[in-house]
């Protein structure tokens, strides 16, 4: 790796942002790539916005900056949109259309942003956007993150080889989910053109 590669994972507390971060770290370790992360814990399971930074390469410490992210993994569209200023024109984004309405929207006090408009904007602005508008039925909610990781491995500059990610999944997945985790990951890896929203 010549250049550091910076990943921003964004989602809602309880969605598995920290878990996905750990998977990325483990994968990088298997691939022998220096890795660092920066996370915020504590309130993370209380349904608030959660982000984590994962940086691969020398001289990085997990910290991200505006316009400095290579890959955005958005587990929820609104949370992905909240991080838009971290992207630049060369960035890639994988966004799962797993909408979780915040209370302010639920109560009618504010509107949920137009996801399609945002995705359209991203497609114009950044290098590549994969929008998982609906996972195949076989993908349970609990496994969506593995699917997303599969998509990430398809990205041209993603520095970790799939075999190392699989090793990490086998090691870290909750008991009983190791096999289905790898299977779902492979599904994400295999389907190059799945569910691209137009």
């Amino acid at each position, binding site marked *: 790796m010549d250049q550091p590669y910076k990943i921003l994972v964004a989602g809602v507390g309880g969605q598995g942002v920290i878990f996905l971060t750990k998977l990325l770290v483990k994968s990088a370790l298997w691939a022998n790539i220096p890795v660092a992360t920066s996370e915020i*814990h504590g309130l993370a399971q209380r*349904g608030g916005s959660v982000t984590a930074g994962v940086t691969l390469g020398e001289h990085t410490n997990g910290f991200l900056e505006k*316009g400095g992210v290579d890959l955005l993994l958005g587990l929820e569209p609104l949370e992905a949109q909240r991080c*838009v200023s971290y992207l*630049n024109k060369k960035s890639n984004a994988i966004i799962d259309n*797993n909408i979780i309405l*915040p209370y302010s929207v639920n109560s009618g006090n504010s509107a949920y942003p137009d*996801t399609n408009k945002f995705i359209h904007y991203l497609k114009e602005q950044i290098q590549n956007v994969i929008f998982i508008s609906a996972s195949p039925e076989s993908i349970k909610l609990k496994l969506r993150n593995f699917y997303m990781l599969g998509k990430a491995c398809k990205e041209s500059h993603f520095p970790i080889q799939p075999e190392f990610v699989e090793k990490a999944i086998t090691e870290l997945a909750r008991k009983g989910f190791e096999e289905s985790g790898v299977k779902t990951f492979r599904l994400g890896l295999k389907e190059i053109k799945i569910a691209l929203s137009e």
Partner: protein
Amino acid sequence: MKKVIDILTSYSTPHKVSAIGNEAIARGAIEAGVNGVFSYPGTPSTEISEVFNLISIFRNSNSSLGNHADLIKNDLYFEYSINEKVALEKAIAFSIGNKSVLCVMKNVGMNIASDPLMSITYQTIIAPLVIVVCDDPGCHSSSNEQDSRYWGNMASVPVFNPATPKDAYEMTKQAFRLSEELRLPVIVRTTTRVSHTRGMLEYNEISTTSRESLFERLPEHINIPARTAVAHQKLLDKLNSDIVDPYFKLFNTIYFAGENKDLAIISSGVTTSYILEIVQRNNLTNRLELFDLGLIFPFPKKGVSEFLQKEFKQVLIIEELDPIIENAVRNIAQKNQLYCEILGKDYAGLGSCGEFTLSQIDQALAHFFKVSTVGEGELDHVNQYENGLPPRPPALCSGCPHRATYYALKLVVPRYNPTDTGKMKGEEVILCGDIGCSGLGALPPLKMVDTINHMGMSISMAQGLSEALKEKNTKVIAMLGDGTFFHSGILSLLNAVYTKSNLMVIIFDNRTIGMTGHQDHPGANNRTKYHEIDIPPLLRGMGIEYVETLMPFDTKDSFKKLEEAMSHEGVSVLVSKAPCVFLPGYKEFTKQDSRIVIDPSKCNTCHNHADLDINCSRNSSASTGMIRAIAKIKAQKPVNASDQSCPANICNHGFFNSILEKDYETALEMVRDKMLFARTCGDLCHRPCELFSNHGAESTVPIKQLKKFVSGIDENFKDFSSTFQRIVNTPKINKNVAIIGAGPAGLSAAYDLIRDGYQVTVFEKEAEAGGLIKHVIPDFRMDKSGFDFEVSQLEKMGVHFHFNSVLGRGIQLEDICQQYDGVIVAIGLGKSNLLDIISSVSDSKKFDAISFLKEYNQKSLKVKPDASILVVGGGNSAIDAARSAKRFHPSVNVVLSCIEEKELMPAFKEEIGHAIEEGVTIFPNSYVAACSESDKLNIALHQFDAKNHLQDLICDYIVIAIGQQGNIEEYSIIGEDKLGNGNKIKANNKTGFTNYKNVFVAGDICDENHMSLIGAIASGKRAVIGIKKLLENYEHDYEGINSLLNLNNKQKEGNSSHPLDLNGDISSIISQFNLFQSCEKCNHCIDNLGCPAMIKINGKINIDYPKCTKCGLCIDVCPNDAISWVKESEVVIENQILTT
């Protein structure tokens, strides 16, 4: 256990790992041979203690240690102490017992632990004691962003300030050495961005040096003033000794040292990481020297002084929070007369608040090095997408027992009006919250917290406020979690008992310290082996008289107990006990075999209207007040409002709930939304709404009496302003409608039409409006002036009246049909039925009931004062006539004969009862078999069924009240085929349309089987819908149609409803009823509960099943009974995963 094994794995050769700062600290302590760890959980420090907690559980578990037995060579004691003060005190003692010790806490924890810290430095420790304090710049999860580096100066203890996980690991390890050498506690201070940053580092071998338990009687262990003054100097000497020097060398590092550099940066902590990343990325390494200070107290005076002597032009000091290093550097520069420009706080926007970001440092360095930082490939118009997004603050988890407790409390202390934020309503109660998950009750929609201070203050706050507000007798409630209660709340509570305070305390006992990730505390040992202290006996032992435990998901019980506790004078404590959703015990009381299902037909749907544009005087439903929800929990008698439907389609829900809220004005408006005659109906209605009910009289909501009550309040009754306003606001429709007949049916139609923007003209044969109600119903049955007032409003609303216009004479139906766009015939029945057998009786001795009552009402009745009068007939007119006759003069003797058995008489039972009470003699099952006239009338009554002779009567007058029929002369043009029984006009029963031109009928002339005020009103309304369908293509049917048609078949009156004391507090009398009905304006669960598993989509609540914990609270909460359990095995609906 993976984690424990990982952290414990001993490496004989260094091994590269990736760890977050907190894990690295734990590993550092393990490698240093720590013997004991004392801690209180607190973000961002918790992961350190959790490592030791896991090890402790692992050791205490019976599971085989397998291959890992060799990993546990050192004895290792761990506890989550009751609070940080006790943790540090016990840690100090542990050290004095010659065991090395780690004490872990978050920034604010050090405040209460500062007491032992400040004194022990004057005394001595024995084995090493390292304190880890984690700061939280930016307050991600703390109540302040205090700078713990000050403790170094304050308490005179060394302070390490790591920049990375690797630093943290090494510094912790060395801190043990330094502590042992100095015999002083040593602080390792981190920040969130060090504790929660994951980096690469190498783990090394774990020390296996064992320490012998030992207590040596040293004079330093006794703290007496005479000794301590000397001790202070000794302490300062320790810090200035050369023991510290090697540590400065180890941890205070100069990067990029070189010749003749102009610029230098001094930094400490995470900012060093930011600087290094940016400097290396931007190839600036040859432009500066960077001095990273890892050991910041004692301050490295020598090192900094030497650094400053390198004659930089500018030295920039970058540190988060307070300018501690900056001030020290300036001090050194001044003392040593080193004149270079020192830049610090507020340089390039780097202030003292919040945490710095990589971007901020990037900009500051660009400024410092005078280079450009213009980012490459910035997105266009990114602000448009980034700004104004709905926030997503943390919230109580779905199914959280705290939410249940808060909701029940909200029912007892209804205070907030969501549309009117912050305004207190009703009884003044102050709610003092505390730190922890329970504090999230302060956020919308619960908003059940008025104060939160530092940890454990809630009870002190409540006591102090209660005392200060004593003259107002304000009730104050303290609310705190179980962990917080033991942490420090318990002391305040003892103080409250001792000072005889008046306050209520709710302990939110979710069996764990939730916020930090479910740690044990003295009251809940889920994982550790320690003794569990049961809270209620503890409280009773403290001398608290009122102690109750409630199960928060039992809303009825919680409500009751909260109310009880509220009314208790003195200290009352409620323990709301249910496990956190993350604990295994949670599933035991939730219904895991079932699923919560919402009936969309009951959620956010108006029961009364398909046409949601129809005016509703209630601005919102149960959301506004909590009264509806309270009724649901309190009331003993659930009544589905649709069981008590009014033919005029009055919204019972809004009417009833307004009364519960004591908003009688709106209650009256709810009636007036649908009809003009609120007070008249309160007097006269035969209350089919109550009769339709399947419930017994005791469980039937007494709607008629309520109507009488609300319309009896003159101030509201006289105020028609909102109706006038509505007419002003309604766009006018350029259509003319004629109404013939100004009785209740015609006037009701006029009322609806004029409010809908029509031009309305009413033709009436009499000189005044009002029909039978005005002219025939005797005044002792109703408030005539109220009726006159109601009728008089129509003219003010713009309805044109033509009086003395008789159909068939002055005006012709045919002409009117042509002149108007629509016509409603509501002329009533103009002709009384006659009895053949009295046809020969002279006119002065016989009356028909209508004329008799008209004359009575007009006070023109001419009968002798001591007359005997026979009334023939069993209907309401007969009873009215009989009662009027009796009232005409007390000595008048009244006999009533009817063919029906008494219980089958068509008249209202109540009226019959009144007649008998007033002295009317009734001969049921009888008929006039013979009548001869002399001076008086000689009448023979026979039994109607057996035809036997029953009674001979001698009377002065006979009143015939055997019904009326239509006067065909008035409307013969309509065609005989359209006439029914009694010459009534046949019409479509959904629209009142006659099939003749544009003519609709309403009221008694309509060929239906009812003769009642409410029937007349409803059929008038139905005819309006018919008109609207004809003239506007209106798509909806008359919404009260079912009740109206039902009326036809239910002429008889049921049991009397339970009489209300209309002078009492109506709202409290009726609070025994839970009258529920779906309402389109309902948003109660969203506005007052806010469970994250309940999501509103397209106006309806949906359950987000993956989030639902099956606690079932929402079932208790829904005011409309729209939510219920369905067994998983019977679930038919699709699992709903949210996608747009």
